[in-house]
């Protein structure tokens, strides 16, 4: 009796834009309620960014959440109420109580009618080429996403220049986050946790690796943060200042200049590899979608948190601002419930 019964009643449909964890979580909850879901994804694959991430366990799970995507994907493929459309670009969007969408898929056009829509179009990773850290200029300066992909696809940590395990690694935090000069007045929530978890994994693969962590403030993540943080402070060097210039020295090793507060002077130090912890920025389609669907963006360029429940268009996941996989799943579920309530209200 709780599940929707459709004797005589036409089946309800919801459009979900974006097949990352947030979109998948929303789609699954809706589908369980016997609502038909058109899940449109612009790339060829579902799963979004989190599907590119590696497991950071070293025997023991560190609760990074990356593996949940696999489970969500499996369930979505199996659920007959979810119609997956990959490689789609929205062309037209009309909302007169009934939402009419037209998308381009390859050379053909598909149209849907939906009772509500959820935007879960995700984020764009910050591009650090214009920061003074030599990204794309120096081989051995990579981003946290590059490192995640390397761990996942190669099951190893190596220097891009010579495919050798780096003896020393520097993590530089907050690249592109907490930066008013870029109008990025937000903390990206996940990069401290991501970097420290990967650091722990690297230490467990090769304990002699020297890891330095350049940061402003370490953010809390995970339930056992205090313990985790205390143990990491023993294992790696933490420097509370963000480095300046990076130059290249012998053997493709980046040389970093940083201010050492304890010694009270600048230090030039050579590392074998540098990892930039780039943050989350508004999705590249946010502006476009906001105009097309008449949903406001906040002053940072993310979708506004307040729900637009009167028009039946809801937002979920990192399209609303930086959040972890766990929070994106939670948010997908919340948006699904909002959409269901909206459809119920409309029925009355």
């Amino acid at each position, binding site marked *: 009796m709780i599940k929707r019964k459709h004797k005589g009643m036409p089946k309800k449909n919801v459009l979900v834009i974006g097949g990352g964890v947030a979109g998948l979580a929303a789609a699954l909850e809706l589908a369980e309620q016997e609502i038909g879901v058109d899940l449109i994804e612009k790339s060829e694959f579902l799963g979004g960014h989190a599907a590119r991430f590696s497991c950071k366990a070293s025997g023991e799970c560190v609760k990074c959440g990356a593996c949940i995507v696999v489970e969500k994907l499996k369930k979505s493929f199996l659920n007959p109420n979810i119609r997956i459309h990959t490689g789609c670009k929205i062309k037209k969007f009309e909302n007169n109580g009934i939402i009419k969408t037209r998308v381009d898929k390859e050379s053909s056009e598909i149209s849907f009618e939906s009772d509500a829509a959820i935007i879960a179009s995700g984020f764009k990773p910050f591009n650090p080429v214009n920061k003074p850290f030599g990204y794309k200029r120096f081989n051995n300066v990579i981003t946290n996403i590059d490192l995640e992909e390397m761990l996942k696809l190669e099951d190893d940590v190596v220097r891009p220049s010579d495919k050798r395990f780096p003896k020393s690694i520097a993590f530089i935090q907050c690249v592109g986050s907490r930066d008013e000069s870029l109008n990025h007045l937000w903390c990206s929530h996940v990069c401290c946790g991501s970097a420290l978890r990967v650091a722990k994994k690297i230490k467990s693969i090769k304990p002699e690796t020297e890891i330095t962590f350049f940061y402003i403030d370490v*953010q809390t993540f995970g339930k056992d943060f205090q313990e985790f943080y205390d143990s990491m402070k023993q294992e790696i060097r933490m420097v509370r200042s963000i480095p300046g210039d990076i130059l290249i020295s012998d053997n493709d090793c980046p040389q970093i200049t940083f201010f050492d507060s304890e010694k009270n002077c600048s230090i030039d130090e050579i590392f074998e590899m540098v990892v930039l912890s780039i943050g989350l920025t508004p999705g590249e389609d946010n502006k476009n979608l906001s105009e097309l669907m008449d949903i406001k963006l906040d002053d940072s360029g993310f979708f506004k948190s307040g729900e637009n429940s009167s028009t039946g268009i809801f937002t979920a996941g990192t399209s609303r601002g930086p959040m972890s996989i766990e929070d994106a799943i939670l948010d997908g579920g*919340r948006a699904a*419930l909002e959409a269901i309530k909206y459809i119920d209200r409309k029925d009355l």
Partner: protein
Amino acid sequence: MALKTLVIGNGSCAFDIVDNLLSKNVEVIIATRDNSLHQKFSEIMGQNITEIHTETTIHSCTGAIGNFTISMKNNNKSIIRIVDCIVIAEDSFRKTLFASYGLSPSTKTISLSDLDNPENYKNIADENKSFVLLKGLKFESNPVISKEVMDSSIKLASHGQSKIYILTKNLKVAGNRLEALYRKAKKAGIIFIKFTDSEPEFFQGEDGKTCIEFTDEVTKKNFSLTPDITVVDESIVPSDYLETLAKTFGLNIDCSGFLQSDNVHRLPAYTNRKGIFVAGPSRGISSPEDYKAEAGTAAIAVLNNSDKNNYDIKDKAYINKGGCVRCLTCYRICPHKTISLNSTLSVMPEGCEGCGLCTAECPKNAITIENLDHKFLIPDDKIQNADSASKPRITAFCCSRSAAEAYKLAVSIGLTLPEGLKIVEVPCAGSISLTHILNSLKNSTGGTIILTCHEGNCFSEKGNVFAHNRAKSVSKMISDAGYKKERLMTYTIASNMGKEFSNILNDFEKNIIDLE
């Protein structure tokens, strides 16, 4: 018949859950230890499907999803109800931290909640000029407290107070718009002083005022502060009721005492028991906004997981009464607490996840899962190459939630795997018994490898640990018998690691070939 749910709790999160459930015509029973309901509930009082029990504690719970029998105590009266699902959303508590700073509460040294209290606030703000707010100096703080401290400071500053200092270790800004709030606080003239490894020293005078001495880490100058008011931060701790509830319902608890284990499979509102959900302040520390989202997901979890009849009995454990000697092993280890103990032991199939821990551990082999036996008897026939004679035959027991997915990923991206590989996909590695391992060693020409979830990532909590322990004892047995123990290996892996899967298997094959 309408779905009936028991909601335990009396805060905003519990209210949001009740509100969400009522809107979907779920019958709700509210039970709280408090003597009256939070005022928020008055909005929905009129809806007569809500049954409310104040001053009521949960005494016992039997049964499984779709048919929980709850016995509650109200003073000495006992109330029995039958419900389909249970949601726990007890509010968390605030713990003052005076003692950790070596301070005592006074009119001049107060706790964060004292400042939030509107009755005190006006006097405090009107009568004092300088304030120091301490945050996360002794224990790492969190964004919720961080937001409260910054909000309170900004409010004080708006009263024209010009001397407000926030002393903090790592400033927690990983919350919605907190970096912008940090900026707003700085704009309001609040001065943040950050500490890394050093800490300020505190001295409290007769008048209760706190004097703080420290070395600023940036300027390296020694400072002292003797503010009119010192505000000490707080930590957020689980309700003391949760421990009792965990015992009553057979739920797991995480390292900080919140309900449900710290396991990604329990996201967003699930517990180790089907039909019992935990949300908001009973689950962990989050912002009010996140608690609202959690209330939404808990409600939708109730709606989507109440279908108790939708299962295949062949996937569920069954106790053969004739074989059982009532040793209670299964009753103790069932991670989903779905074995009931009456005159005989029986599995309540609605709550059974088919993990097979009980079948592997029963000393009398009295428990069966039909589809599981099937799996072990006829291993997946996806042998990489039909002509496997030249290569050692490798049997890989793979947990369906991790290793089996990693295997599929490896195949789908075309990674090389041993030619003689046989995959035996099991619901949980905990179902791999000593007999299964020994049989496999007997039948494989090459070796046997067991691949489980990483520790802490097992859907059945400890199924992986059981598997590893069993493998360890078999390993000892076979090496005592002069058999090469390298033929039996165990690994942990996550579902998203195709390449790692292929590396592990290829290395294993290589080691086996080297043995020959």
